[in-house]
């Protein structure tokens, strides 16, 4: 069977290469039939990759330890769902998985556009198949997941215990989905550049894809943060590790893109800028994949150091050269007449929002690659850590939050003093009032305080928008308030969905600011029955409970939690000792409330002296970050839901029309 898998991969690569050739030839010679054969070859690529992935999955599920990959990432005692997750748990499998997701999206895009975008589609196919070929090439020639061991292993080495976690089932797939789907807007951008159809057709077609990609990048980042928070046990959720940054940078640029396309759609400006953003998002996704796999920059959670680096660098250069070359070639046609008239306009606010987002991405990029650059330039590695990223990004984040309030409500073109008053009197009042109340309540002036004040300002603008939209409809159509609100949202899904997403982002901002600035950290070595304080909590270490099964042995500290003398909870932070491979892991005990998390870690336990070292963190408002994620998901759903008019258009085309075409 594994040989069949390898065969499927090789054939898939051939199909993909054929598809590139046929699509380009067909587009240049205007031969419909040739284009169609390219499309069909792309479908075949998808089918073959599905076969290959299915064979690898079957090998994992049947514990075929004659395969190096299966022996390295699973074992006969590994639960089934982690065995499935092992498909993307290791380097080789993850590349195949990437190809699987990409070919699936390619198929989806082709099916969506079977009757549309005739001039763009061959180029779209060619671009997506080029990316596919790169990954399939790696799987075929460099890291073969179907490689056999010289002698079959008796038992597998098992998935890394740190990965044996339910997040493994959801975090990598959502991040991959976000990464891979960023290829679709990229492919359409390349298609627009190659075919010369530079209007906003490509943007309209990929609007949902861009939002889809952005949404999964958001989820991937959030899930990664939750995973780190719950599993790694250092009390935080974000460490500015290169791999985290690798997922964060495309998110930033993709956020900028989602905003600046609105300017192109409404005002036909920023065409070049949008091209650059979409190309940048894609290259950053490849760069991110490269960072996690090349070992160029040391990181806590990268894959095996491997020889893949040069191939990724090569592909990156290729993508940048082709995309950059096309942009330069089309530059005269891309220029537009529209200019921004005033600083006080929505165009300006959006442009500045874009610059700040890209600025943050640049700062993160620079901090991430700085060790490498400094080694090139000065011959010595200089690293920067979380203090650098926090210092740089806190003021930029504040600026971004401010612009998030300004952008959606300021007038287009040029805001008059009257406009400004009408748009900002209430939100600014609310923000200032909140800031004063917080100061009086004892919140010290600083980043957190500013974030809270600006957060209220942004929420004020959003509330005002909802209110005015609803009132306008009520005045016109005499609808009841809930109905008017539902209708006004239904008629402007993108706009109001966007506002809901903004609410989620504000929640995340508030959570991040509060938990970064006001967190309490206590480390205490205690004997049985001893108490210590952490924030407003009193913690008492009662005893150690030990248990053991075939997989691991665990020691849990039983800690009673008191507030004002009354016991409110019992928490059990744990150390586990996995038997295969021999490795301890930390199991955090987290008591999460809307106000704050009490996060306990059993640092160590000494059986001789019976002393336990317990770390206690009090992290305020962390839950609001995760709740923000839920709100973002809800807002995205509103924004992508097809409107009634679109649903009518989506009626399937009769079969005959397809043949006639």
């Amino acid at each position, binding site marked *: 069977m594994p040989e069949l898998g390898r065969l499927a991969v090789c054939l898939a690569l051939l199909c993909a290469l054929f598809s590139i050739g046929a699509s380009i030839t067909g587009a240049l010679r205007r031969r419909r039939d040739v284009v169609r054969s390219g499309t069909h070859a792309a479908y075949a690529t998808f089918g073959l990759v599905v076969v290959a992935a299915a064979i690898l999955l079957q090998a994992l599920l049947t514990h075929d330890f004659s395969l190096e990959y299966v022996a390295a990432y699973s074992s006969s005692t590994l639960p089934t769902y982690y065995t499935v997750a092992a498909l993307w748990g290791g380097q080789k499998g993850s590349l195949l998985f990437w190809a699987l997701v990409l070919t699936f999206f390619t198929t989806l895009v082709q099916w969506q556009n079977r009757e549309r975008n005739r001039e763009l589609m061959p180029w779209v196919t060619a671009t997506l198949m080029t990316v596919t070929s790169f990954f399939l090439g790696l799987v075929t020639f460099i890291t073969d997941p179907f490689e056999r061991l010289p002698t079959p292993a008796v038992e597998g080495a098992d998935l890394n215990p740190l990965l044996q976690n339910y997040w493994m089932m959801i975090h990598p797939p959502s991040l991959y989905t976000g990464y891979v789907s960023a290829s679709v807007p990229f492919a359409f951008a390349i298609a627009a550049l190659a075919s010369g159809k530079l209007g906003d057709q490509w943007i309209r077609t990929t609007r949902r894809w861009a939002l889809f990609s952005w949404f999964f990048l958001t989820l991937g980042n959030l899930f990664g943060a939750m995973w780190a928070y719950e599993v790694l046990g250092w009390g935080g959720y974000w460490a500015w590790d290169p791999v985290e940054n690798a997922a964060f940078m495309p998110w930033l640029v993709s956020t900028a893109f989602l905003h600046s396309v609105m300017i192109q759609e409404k005002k036909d400006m920023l065409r070049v800028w949008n091209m650059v953003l979409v190309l940048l998002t894609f290259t950053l996704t490849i760069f991110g994949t490269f960072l996690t796999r090349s070992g160029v920059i040391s990181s806590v959670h990268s894959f095996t150091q491997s020889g893949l680096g040069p191939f990724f660098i090569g592909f990156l250069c290729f993508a940048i050269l082709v995309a950059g070359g096309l942009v330069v070639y089309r530059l005269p046609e891309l220029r537009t007449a529209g200019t921004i008239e005033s600083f006080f306009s929505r165009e300006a606010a959006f442009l500045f929002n874009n610059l700040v987002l890209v600025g943050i991405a640049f700062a993160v990029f620079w901090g991430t690659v700085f060790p490498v650059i400094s080694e090139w330039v000065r011959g010595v590695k200089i690293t920067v850590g979380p203090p650098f990223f926090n210092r740089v990004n806190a003021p*930029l984040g504040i600026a971004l939050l401010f612009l998030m309030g300004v952008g959606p409500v300021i007038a287009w073109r040029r805001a008059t003093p009257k406009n400004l008053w009408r748009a900002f009197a209430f939100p600014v009042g609310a923000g200032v009032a909140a800031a004063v109340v917080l100061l009086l309540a004892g919140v010290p002036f600083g980043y957190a305080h500013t974030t809270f004040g600006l957060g209220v300002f942004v929420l004020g603008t959003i509330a005002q928008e909802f209110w005015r939209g609803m009132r306008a409809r009520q005045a016109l159509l005499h609808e009841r308030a809930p109905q008017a609100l539902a209708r006004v949202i239904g008629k402007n899904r993108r706009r109001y969905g966007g506002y809901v997403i903004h609410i989620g982002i504000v929640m995340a901002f508030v959570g991040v600011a509060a938990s970064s600035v006001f967190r309490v950290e206590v*480390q205490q070595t205690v004997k049985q029955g001893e108490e210590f304080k952490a924030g407003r909590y009193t913690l008492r270490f009662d005893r150690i409970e030990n248990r053991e099964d075939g997989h691991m042995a665990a020691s849990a500290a039983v800690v009673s939690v008191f507030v004002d003398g009354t016991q409110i909870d019992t928490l059990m932070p744990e150390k586990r000792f996995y038997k295969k491979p021999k490795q301890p892991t930390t199991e955090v005990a987290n008591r999460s409330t809307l106000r704050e998390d009490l996060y306990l870690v059993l640092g160590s336990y000494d059986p001789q002296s019976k002393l336990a070292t317990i770390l206690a963190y009090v992290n305020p408002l962390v839950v609001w970050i995760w709740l923000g994620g839920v709100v973002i998901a809800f807002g995205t759903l509103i924004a992508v839901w097809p409107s009634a008019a679109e649903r009518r258009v989506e009626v399937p085309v009769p079969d005959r029309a397809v043949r006639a075409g």
Partner: protein
Amino acid sequence: MLNQRRFVIGAVLIAAAVSYLVYAGIKTTSVYYFEMDEFVARRADHAGEDLRVKGWVKQGTMQWDAATNRLAFDLSRKDGSEPVPVAYTGILPDMFAEGREVVVEGRYETPGLKAKQIMTSCPSKYEAEREQGATHPGA
């Protein structure tokens, strides 16, 4: 055209602000990162400075006292040569073990390193070991 120019100035101002933040941030927070060889060669120049040093935990040198949370070990080259004593007080990282590759962040005070933080690189190291056959099931 006047407006256009004003915007270029606005954009340049933002770019300048970002550049300044990055520059100042790097200036105040950056730390030298040495491989063991470099560290041995240049440590005399960097006494008392915060550094990051990557090396291996020498076999047979790890001393851990769970009651006081004190850790002492020798950081060395992969083959165990050029050992440098490291002292650390705090939680023992899960992935810390003899023979593993670690990054020590701390201050160099002759003769050794006073560590503030010890970073273990988990999955990559874990996989690398296996590839060398150390824990390989078939080996």
